[in-house]
């Protein structure tokens, strides 16, 4: 896996800094190194609870929802935007999927419903941002409430139970097929991760995303149709959010309008831990996945060690702080 690829376009774009290849590689690998350090640390704590295969399978499944949504958020954050409505959109999608399945629709139809709902959410966000020229923070703060309310409305404010039709097996930590080491949803997430990392590096969409985030005015002067690109970016992120909503339904086998409150913060944290910068122009797809995995792993270890929730919250909080602090410190050193 050539993870160094993800950040490479930076050096070729206006506003990007030229960096030696080794440093770029280190930057991209940093989240994985951090991950290894944390795993080693937790193993060092007596009574040395092993990280078993089942542990990894479980943590991988717990990564899926935040991970998939965070890949879309990576595009948005690289472009200099933000999306606070992710958690609400996940809840809305999970309810829409549940309602569709309850109507007797099949799994393919449910997938279409999920992607469609997510894409519509993303499209609405982008319309608010480009047409009304609202700052993304404000636009998505508004839709955070709107999508949540919509989810409660169409569900009658109560969880909608529906036949899972095998969707539950996608997110079962120990897969039924014993030759599969990880759950199908995890494979889907990993495949998407590699695919989207390639999109970010090799396609016009990916390179324009970096360009807009690095310096929007320059990007516009270079002839990039910034509003249209933003619509693409938010719709792409919406598709991924829809997929995350489908996974959320699969986890609970019900559409729950109150699920995923605050998940947007986990999603943003995953991107930031993975090397994303909230001022735009920086971020890596695989780093984001490592960030999402790191948070799920911490939850798992804190449970295994019998620590209460507050310990985990304090640790995750500081991991975000440390990750960003190191990043800033390194950026200053590069500038010098």
């Amino acid at each position, binding site marked *: 896996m050539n993870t160094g690829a993800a950040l490479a376009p930076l050096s070729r774009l206006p506003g990007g800094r030229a960096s030696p290849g080794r440093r770029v590689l280190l930057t991209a690998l940093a989240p994985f190194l951090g991950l290894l350090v944390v795993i080693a640390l*937790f193993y060092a704590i007596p009574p040395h609870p092993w990280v078993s295969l089942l542990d990894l399978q479980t943590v991988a499944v*717990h990564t899926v929802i935040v991970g998939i949504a965070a890949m879309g958020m990576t595009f948005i954050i690289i472009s200099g935007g933000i999306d606070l409505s992710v958690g609400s959109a996940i809840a809305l999608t999970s309810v829409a999927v549940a309602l569709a399945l309850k109507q007797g629709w099949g799994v393919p139809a449910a997938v279409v419903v999920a992607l469609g709902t997510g894409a519509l959410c993303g499209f609405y966000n982008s319309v608010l941002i480009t047409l009304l020229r609202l700052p993304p923070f404000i636009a998505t703060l508004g839709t955070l409430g709107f999508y949540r309310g919509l989810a409660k409305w169409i569900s009658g404010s109560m*969880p909608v139970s529906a036949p899972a039709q095998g969707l539950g097996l996608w997110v079962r930590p120990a897969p039924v097929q014993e030759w599969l080491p990880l759950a199908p949803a995890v494979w889907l997430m990993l495949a998407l991760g590699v695919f989207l990392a390639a999109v970010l590096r090799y396609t016009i969409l990916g390179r324009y995303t970096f360009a807009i985030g690095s310096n929007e005015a320059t990007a516009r002067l270079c002839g990039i149709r910034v509003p249209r690109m933003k619509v693409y970016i938010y719709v792409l992120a919406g598709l991924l959010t829809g997929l995350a909503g489908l996974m959320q339904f699969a986890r*609970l*086998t019900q559409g729950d309008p109150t699920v995923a409150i605050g998940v947007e913060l986990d999603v943003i944290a995953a991107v930031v831990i993975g090397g994303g910068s909230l001022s735009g122009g920086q971020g890596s797809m695989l780093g984001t996945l490592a960030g999402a995995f790191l948070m799920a792993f911490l939850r798992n270890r804190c449970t295994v060690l019998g620590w209460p929730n507050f310990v985990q919250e304090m640790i995750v909080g500081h991991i975000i702080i440390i990750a960003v602090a190191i990043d800033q410190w390194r950026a200053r050193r590069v500038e010098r």
Partner: protein
Amino acid sequence: MRVWMATCLLLCAVWGCRQQQPPTSGSGATASGEPAATAPAKLKIAVIPKGTSHDFWKSVHAGAVKAARELGNVEVIFRGPEREDDREQQVSVVQNFISSRVDAIVLAPLDDTALLPAVQQATAAKIPVVIIDSGLTGTVGQDFISFAATDNYKGGQLGAQRLGEVLGGQGRVLLLRYQEGSASTVERERGFIEKLAEAPGISLVDPKRHAGPTRATAQEAAENLLTAHSDVQGVFCPNESSTFGMLLALRSRGLAGKVRFVGFDASAGLVEALGQGELDGLVVQNPMHMGYTGVKTAADYLAGKPVPPLQDTGVVLVTKETMGQPEYQELLFPDLTKYP
């Protein structure tokens, strides 16, 4: 370089946490005087409440620790979601305990369907599950080994009976429901409604409004309800947070003590209100016994003993007049410090 920096900082953070490792993780539960060495491999039993912020679950925890102390060879790990409507987090906690191979799980499910897949995964992994407090749609004996809970239907009936008494069999009674999908409170509401229907002079006002997960959401819902139905003479709420929220709403409108009010569950604030006559009765469960029964049942099962599929952990009505009696004092003021 950066890695080292991160290592040091993390080490500090993690080490700091270990230093103050809280009592929840383990009872260290050897019976007094018994050397720990006699029990080399302690049974790890995970107790997963619906939330960690309500007093109710602190009593469940105390009961679990009490059982662990009596049994001697059991370690209790107590962990749950922070918010009482976070089904997703509770599923994750169950799965994390499965992957860490605890010996048994005692679970108070937040939802009767959403938690079923996780419980089935535990059973498939040969980890027995005892369900406490709230029902699960699975089959006892197949998906889980035992169900130990309050007879919630009876609890609702007790509340209706008391309201009928204090109203003298006449009046309009408002019901603030707790939360959809929570099997235990739905049962209480059903018991309440069906018992109340037996009194011909009392009419039920049931706008099917739900209090939501916290005292704050309950307070807001209660304030709205009292505005819309200002002509009620009696009120019933089916759990601690809804009762407390309603109490706050009644107080802010100067109705506390004037409207007849029966609530459910005991917490310090509610017991105080009962003593002041703001509440005409509290239907009280025995959460400590629930936690105790859950852990005891799991340990019995692991020891190969037969376990009963259904267990009633008790429910009583406490009023201002009866609250001084010693058997109720223990329910209203459980000594949690004895079982940290």
